[in-house]
């Protein structure tokens, strides 16, 4: 995703449409293959079909946060500083939060029949839950009002702070778990399931399809952010004109050069030798 992809159409829109179409086709194909074509697993039975959904969603979550982190870094780096990176970080985080929520929900739905519980304090699960809240907080930080660039910098720092926390959370939960009680469940993916044949292809397809969906969502969310920025700037020159018009009889509109209004004002000054603020240049 290039951050240069604008809010406007042109070739970008055509590419985006193709991307969306591919993603949609990919998802439909995944559903068809996953629910009807692939065989049930020897151990997990039909439950294995969630394998074509949950891991791909989790994978997108990682990509989304990775991109959000990278673009936040690129925003903070003075040489690459551009609001486009901030928009990209915000867009990717929001999509990431959606996917994190889905990771938790689909994982829970999978966990209930597999492990017998909706939730377990597994390191990965716990970290993911905290990740969800952390990035909700990040999105809340993005909403704090302020000057546009100030908001961008603040958000980028918040993203960095959150990202630094993720590995610490993961390791601490890992230790906490391992010292607490031995894991009572086996990992359903690596532990029991042997992925092969049509299942492998479907799994691969699900990753590709959801990544395409992510790219499409990201692009649209980015466009929305760019439109919001445009909207923020929109009407500014009108607002400035209105602001100037508050002065009353002084001409407020027009393209007079800098200081012309001062010259005009100085014309009304009784003392022709008055030093206007613009004088002496």
């Amino acid at each position, binding site marked *: 995703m290039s951050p240069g992809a604008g809010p406007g159409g042109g070739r970008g829109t055509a590419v985006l449409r193709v991307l969306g179409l591919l993603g949609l086709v990919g998802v439909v194909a995944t559903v068809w293959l996953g629910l009807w074509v692939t065989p049930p697993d020897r151990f997990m039975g039909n439950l294995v079909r969630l394998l074509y959904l949950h891991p791909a969603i989790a994978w997108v979550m990682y990509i989304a946060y990775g991109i959000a982190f990278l673009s936040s870094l690129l925003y903070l780096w003075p040489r690459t500083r551009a609001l486009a990176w901030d928009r990209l970080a915000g867009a990717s985080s929001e999509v990431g939060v959606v996917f994190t929520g889905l990771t938790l929900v689909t994982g829970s739905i999978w966990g209930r029949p597999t492990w017998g519980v909706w939730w377990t304090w597994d390191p990965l699960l716990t970290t993911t839950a905290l990740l969800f809240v952390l990035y909700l907080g990040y999105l*809340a930080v993005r909403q*704090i009002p302020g000057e546009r660039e100030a908001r961008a910098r*603040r958000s980028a720092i918040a993203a*960095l*702070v959150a990202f630094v926390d993720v590995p*610490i959370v993961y390791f*601490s*939960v890992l230790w906490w778990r391992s010292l607490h009680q031995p894991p009572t469940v086996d990992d359903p993916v690596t532990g029991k399931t042997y992925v092969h044949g049509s299942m492998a292809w479907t799994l691969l397809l699900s990753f590709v399809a959801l990544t395409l969906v992510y790219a499409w969502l990201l692009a649209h969310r980015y466009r929305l952010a760019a439109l919001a920025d445009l909207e923020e700037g929109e009407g500014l020159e009108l607002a400035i004109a209105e602001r100037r018009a508050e002065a009353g009889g002084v001409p407020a509109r027009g393209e007079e050069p800098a200081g012309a209004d001062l010259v005009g004002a100085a014309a009304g000054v009784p003392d022709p030798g008055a030093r206007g603020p613009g004088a002496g240049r």
Partner: protein
Amino acid sequence: MLRDAWLVAGKDLRIEVRSKVALGQVAPFAFVVVLLFGLALGPAVGRGSVLSAAAPGLFWVAVLLATVLAVQRSFAVEAADGAADGLRLSGLDPAGVFLGKAAAVAGQLLVLELFLAAAVSLVYDRHLSALVVLAASCVTATIGLVAAGVLYGVVSMGARQRETLLPLLFFPLVAPILLGATKLWGEALAGAPGRGSGWLELLGAFAVAYCAIGVVAFGPLLEEA
């Protein structure tokens, strides 16, 4: 930087001495929390009771809640009378402001923890042992908590909904501290300190990481608040 930190910490502590908000409100609040846990988790006391077993965790949850209040107070002082602009105009080094504010809050919290630990020990009937480990975990955990808290305190200072935003940002961030400090306390109180020696390092790493981020990032964040 250190000179400014000293100046700010002195100022904040003097304000506390004069206003007694931490003493009169934050500390009582923490004790209320401790009592509420007691009411929620049953009257049974003695070894093996829920309260006694959960004492380390409950202690640290109370500390976390108190930290949020202390940090909020620390920035309410600055925001009153438009003094947030005052902080920006003061000419103080932002890193110094960060360290000073963090030091002042940490000092207050450490004193609070001392009394809170005594209260937990009495009310939940849990004998405190391995005091060195307890103290060490308190100090490192508090530094990390306060660094993260002051960092997000200045972020949320600019928000209109700062009272609700700060806890949302703060609690997930410091989850590792809660885990680590609780673990350390649990082991220490169970008479087996040192088994989880990794935890103190984790707390230390957290404290160092967020102090470093704070020193670097506080300036830009203060600017936007």
